């Protein structure tokens, strides 16, 4: 009961707009309308507008599966596929499944091995009566944030050419566990040579020094989509009841113990960044500091400030 009151007060204070109300009509999202889907696949409204898809709706089940799979990989990147459908300018992800390939980002051919698995899985799914199709892929960046690396960008561009509609989702399980909020990002790439008309404002996140170059080079080639979540009425009910069972874990689990080395790693990264900033300063002319110099210092400082929040 108390948790319900706490939840309602919090929701009120934070103006939660699109709360998926647990009434029977919202379960409609689970219904797969074959006719409408086939029509939209033929019409392909995304072919002309690279910025067509703006929102992503992820189901509770898909999120749970993806986060658990990402975390189970530890420090190794894992990947999987998502199935679902489209709905106007939103992509709806109903479920996700893991692919039996792990590897570093340099393994572009991971996709080739996984195709057989994917075909098998899709076939068995269709047999069991799941009518949705594959709408995207997800992979994890353990510890270094939600963004697309160079390899990811090229993979996604390829996917968007041949398997539209397709979505790329990145999950960071280490940051999720250490901060207690789910770190997830959904992206679509722009086609080759397309310049976005407006500068997309992305949420600032800290990137470790060794990856920051890769991030910077490609960050303009894709855009992030808004993510919202949905769940069925039965899910709502069950999740509320589940809370009664695992509230103990909320108190007993400590992020300090679980993520000791991650925090240590972040601190050493911070130290490196500060050193770099200092070197930048001492090597340059110490006259009236131009605005560009100040910007560099500010950027590096801001990096560390956001990180420790």
């Amino acid at each position, binding site marked *: 009961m108390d*948790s319900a009151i*706490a*939840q309602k007060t*919090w929701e009120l204070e*934070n103006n939660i707009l699109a709360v998926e109300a647990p009434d029977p*009509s919202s*379960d409609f999202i*689970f*219904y797969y*309308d*074959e*006719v409408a889907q086939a029509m939209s696949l033929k019409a392909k409204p995304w072919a002309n507008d690279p910025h067509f898809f703006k929102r992503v709706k992820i*189901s*509770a089940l898909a*999120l*749970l599966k993806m*986060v*658990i799979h*990402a*975390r189970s990989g530890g420090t190794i990147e894992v990947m999987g596929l998502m199935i679902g459908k489209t709905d106007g300018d939103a992509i709806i992800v*109903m*479920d996700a*499944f893991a692919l*039996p390939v792990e590897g570093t980002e340099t393994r572009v051919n991971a996709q080739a091995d996984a195709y057989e698995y994917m075909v*098998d*899985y899709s076939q*068995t799914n269709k*047999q*069991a*009566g799941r*009518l949705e199709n594959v709408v995207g892929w997800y992979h994890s960046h353990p510890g270094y944030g939600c963004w697309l690396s160079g390899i990811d960008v090229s993979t996604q561009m390829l996917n968007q050419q041949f398997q539209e509609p397709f979505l790329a989702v990145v999950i960071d399980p280490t940051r999720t*566990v250490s901060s*207690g*909020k*789910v770190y997830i990002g959904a992206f679509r790439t722009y086609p080759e040579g397309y310049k976005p008309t407006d500068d997309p404002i992305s*949420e600032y996140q800290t990137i470790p020094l060794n990856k920051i170059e890769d991030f910077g080079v490609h960050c303009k080639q894709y855009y992030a989509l808004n993510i919202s*979540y949905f769940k*069925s*009425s*039965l*899910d709502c009910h*069950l*999740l509320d009841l*589940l809370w*009664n*069972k*695992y*509230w*103990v874990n*909320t*108190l007993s*689990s400590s992020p*300090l113990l*679980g993520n000791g080395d991650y925090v240590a790693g972040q601190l050493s990264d911070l130290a490196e960044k500060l050193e770099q900033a200092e070197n930048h300063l001492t090597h340059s002319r110490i006259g009236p500091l131009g605005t560009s110099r100040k910007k560099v*210092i500010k950027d590096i*400082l*801001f990096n*560390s*400030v956001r990180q*420790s929040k």
Partner: protein
Amino acid sequence: MASSSSSGLTFKLHPLVIVNISDHYTRVKSQLNLPPSLTSTSSAATSNNNNNNSNGGENNQQKPPRVYGCVIGVQRGRTVEIFNSFELIYDPSTRSLDRSFLEKKQELYKKVFPHFYVLGWYSTGSDAQESDMHFHKALMDINESPLYVLLNPAINPAQKDLPVTIYESELHVIDGVPQLIFVRSSYTIETVEAERISVDHVAHLKPSGGSAATQLAAQLTGIHSAIKMLNSRIRVVHQYLVGMQKGDIPCESSLLRQVSSLLRRLPAIESEKFQDDFLMEYNDTLLITYLAMFTNCSSTMNELVDKFNTAYDRHSRRGGRTAFI
């Protein structure tokens, strides 16, 4: 036919399984009962592996369909941990289980989760039925003692307990004939840290973006409600004990023993080494917070200097200070 189990196995259920079953059920149900705005022709074409559907029309008062599937996990010694589940094709009218499908799915899941194997099966409904025994027996050649997880999809707002029951099968002699019957077992919910966070996230629909303040508020609200829950539970035990002391409630020695053993465990750890480690961690955290505040301060100072320079810049404006418009 459900009495309490005596096999001595402890069961741990992961929330993923529960959400999986609920999702399966919701999908099948919504594929049937479409909203009145859509025509009935598409529904007739798309009603598929539904088991109890005899009339594929706009009938919204059908009996809720039963879904069937398989649960997988690990068994270590006496603990059985159920991690995941997937659907199965089963036809209750002919009582046939699609074997090849089951095997194919097993193979696929083995590739991704090599440690898990089939532990049993699941279904939805309000109570275990006789016909379920056939399914149970069919699975017995994969696992000698399969589990039956039953989810009751009826949403009952007054319910405080999870509508999930786990049944095992035991050989009992009834009327001289050895028969397999279902016996209920108790289970606990087990979560991995990541699971808990994402379940929490979806359960309370926390904003994924948003400023640091709302994030912190959301996290603290979670911890606050957990502490409230702990508080209310302790109060209940306290009231119970007071009642027992006054004599209102009959004394129950087993309960008293449990309470006393719990109290004797507090304080949990008292050794010196613990104090050392604890204070070290505490100091580390305080240092990091100090560093964060430090950098915050220096960036604010930097901004202040910037603003001052822009407002009172001697080189770009004639004369000394001019009012900053």
